[in-house]
């Protein structure tokens, strides 16, 4: 049975699209046929992060409106056979994502894919609600910072009340915390909320901690999901998170500060 995973956060700029791209690619690398959908109508960016912006012909809205069929709009990733990208439209009509239309497309995607990753827009408006409505699982992307944690709490509440599972009194959406842009050195100095603090405040299970890393910007610069960068701590942390999602036990890496030489501390960060 296909699983729908929403990547959401409430707050913008915390790493939803980066996470969607990395997680989808990670699932594909593990042998699962996966599609990642951009729900951010009007502010399409998943195509850029996935490096397929020049291959977009038809989009989500075209398929909903029946102007194109699903297979015309799906873009097959050039790096991995199991990975597909479903871009959104750049229309300004925010309500173009009609729930019935989205439902029909989701059902069709479930026939073809094992995992459907929904990259949610920020906020709690129509687009974000539509992105989470069909979810079986949710990845709550959170930065160790007060406004992000507060907005995550809000979106967890919305998942519990406004998702289809909630409306139908089905078992609730299983929610996972993914802490991103984590800086263990600052945590050690008491300048940043620690992973255990965020876990305690939000009281949802922890899927992973992604360290603040230069490789994330490098990945988006080049349009490559960060999991394809084997040298990247962030990429490896995402690979671990995917493994945990699939039920494996893996120790949390990158949560304690690395000892650095005096000169490296002076002249730049890894």
């Amino acid at each position, binding site marked *: 049975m296909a699983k729908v995973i929403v990547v959401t956060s409430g707050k913008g700029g915390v790493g939803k699209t980066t996470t969607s791209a990395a997680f989808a690619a990670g699932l594909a690398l593990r042998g699962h046929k996966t599609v990642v959908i951009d729900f951010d109508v009007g502010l399409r960016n998943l195509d850029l992060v996935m490096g397929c912006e020049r291959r977009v012909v038809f989009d989500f809205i075209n398929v909903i409106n029946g102007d194109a069929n699903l297979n015309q709009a799906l873009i097959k990733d050039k790096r991995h056979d199991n990975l597909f990208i479903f871009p959104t439209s750049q229309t300004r009509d925010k309500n173009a994502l009609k729930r019935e239309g989205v439902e029909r497309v989701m059902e069709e995607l479930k026939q073809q894919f094992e995992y459907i990753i929904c990259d949610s827009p920020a906020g709690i408006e129509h687009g974000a609600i539509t992105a989470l409505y069909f979810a079986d699982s949710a990845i709550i992307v959170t930065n160790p*910072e*007060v406004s992000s*944690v*507060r907005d995550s*709490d*809000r979106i967890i*509440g919305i998942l519990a009340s406004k998702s289809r599972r909630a409306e139908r009194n089905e078992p609730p959406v299983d929610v996972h915390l993914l802490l991103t842009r984590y800086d263990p050195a600052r*945590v050690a*100095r*008491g*300048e*940043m*909320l*620690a992973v255990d*603090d965020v876990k305690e*405040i939000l009281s949802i299970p922890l899927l992973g901690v992604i360290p603040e890393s230069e490789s994330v910007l490098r990945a988006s610069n080049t349009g490559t999901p960060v999991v394809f960068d084997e040298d990247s701590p962030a990429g490896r942390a995402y690979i671990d998170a995917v493994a945990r999602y699939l039920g494996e036990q893996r120790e949390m890496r990158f949560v304690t500060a690395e000892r650095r030489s005096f000169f490296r501390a002076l002249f730049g960060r890894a």
Partner: protein
Amino acid sequence: MAFFRSLFQPKRNSASIAKERLKIVLAHERAGSRAPDFLPILQKELLAVVARYVEISEEMIRVTLGGSGDTSLLEINIEIESGKLKKSGSGSALGAAV
């Protein structure tokens, strides 16, 4: 060494302040998001009634709706400072005015 550290470090680290602030604001918001609309009005009316008998201010009364599963629990907490009980008689006078 500890002396030098105390020179350069602020008294309390900002992460623990963040944690405490978040806990307070989220406790408030979680309670608020499930509360029906009438709670603030109920709180005001209760305050008016109690004030006839006891000296009380707005922050001394808390009305929350909690519970789990099929049962709801309406909790009313009224804090009364000792010695602030009014003498009998004043209550009925105020009562007549309402």
